């Protein structure tokens, strides 16, 4: 039987790396999936998941136990991925007026060989068509359950911009789903 998560967290906070490995094993699948969906590339997702767990070890002392450990870890992972996207790709936090913000970027077009495997194909395809910013907003809102003001805090974009990204991302996904149907 797995030890209780809170005990593993406490042991990790006191420097127990064996306990931290158990936390890693229990959460790596979810963290990797989140990284994969946020960045859209398998190798990069592995690097980001690894970086997230290293960062989590450094910051685990600040985990107060107010929420689930996985929620805290997902927020940290989101920050790691967003930080990477900000540095290395097109990251739009300004208000949007042009539909072309949602055209598939050159970077995404060249990543077809790195498509994630075992995912719902059409939704995955639609996710790939979104800009990095829209994809992050959609996942943070729909999967992680963040409100727009929280997304604004994490990403640095205005609340209105976050709403617009979400709206357009949903439209794209809906159109893709209808087309597949």
């Amino acid at each position: 039987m797995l030890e209780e998560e809170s005990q593993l967290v406490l042991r990790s906070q006191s420097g127990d790396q064996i306990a931290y490995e158990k936390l890693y094993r229990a959460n790596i699948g979810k963290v990797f999936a989140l990284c994969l969906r946020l960045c859209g590339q398998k190798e990069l997702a592995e690097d980001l998941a690894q970086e997230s767990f290293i960062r989590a070890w450094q910051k685990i002392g600040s985990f107060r136990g107010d929420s689930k450990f996985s929620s805290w870890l997902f927020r940290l992972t989101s920050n790691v991925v967003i930080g990477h996207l900000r540095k290395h790709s097109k990251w739009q936090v300004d208000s949007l007026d042009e539909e072309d913000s949602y055209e598939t970027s050159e970077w995404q077009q060249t990543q077809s060989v790195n498509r994630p495997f075992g995912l719902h194909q059409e939704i995955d395809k639609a996710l790939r068509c979104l800009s990095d910013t829209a994809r992050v907003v959609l996942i943070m809102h729909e999967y992680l359950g963040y409100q727009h003001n929280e997304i604004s805090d994490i990403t640095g974009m205005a609340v209105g911009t976050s709403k617009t990204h979400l709206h357009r991302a949903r439209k794209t996904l809906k159109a893709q789903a209808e087309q597949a149907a």
Partner: protein
Amino acid sequence: MSYKKDSMKNKQQGVDDDVKYLDEVKYLDELNWDIQPDRDLWPDVHSNIRFAGKPELLVKSSTLPAHKSAVQRLWMPMSMAACMMLALGAFVMSSLSFQRAQDTYQLQASYIDYQKSQISLIEQQHAHVRAQFTTLLSGELGTINPATVAEVQAVLLTIDSASLELKEAILAQPTNANYSSMLAHTYQQELNLLNKFKTANGMSI
């Protein structure tokens, strides 16, 4: 301007309506959100954290009531004990320094008393010698050269002036032993002068 505002407001309203409609559709729920990576990432994670030591503990003690470490549980009594030790140390140090100051003060006071008694004794002797000389001189005035008498009296006046200044200096700095020595030396010089004068003029006590 107003048109632009209205346009933006209508646009945002349209977005909100669409969001309401699309809220009901949860496409992402269709996806698998637990995917294992191809390779085990733990060895790389472990090699990075191995030498990092213990993570920095930033949690406030109140957030972990049942699992406080020994340090967290004992910090209050340890702090109190440290404060008490510091207070005790400060008290002892201040007592010692007060005692030392008291001793120094007492030593100074006794030294000053000693100096005063010594000066008083010298002055008594000086007054006695001076009175004796004055009496002797008044009896021999007719036989001694008046110029010599005037010269001696001028020297005695100079000695008196110097003695007076030295007494004032002693009052200002009672612990300065140099002034007392100088006063004693001045009186001794006067005594020597008077003895020489008496011998030179055939005077006898």
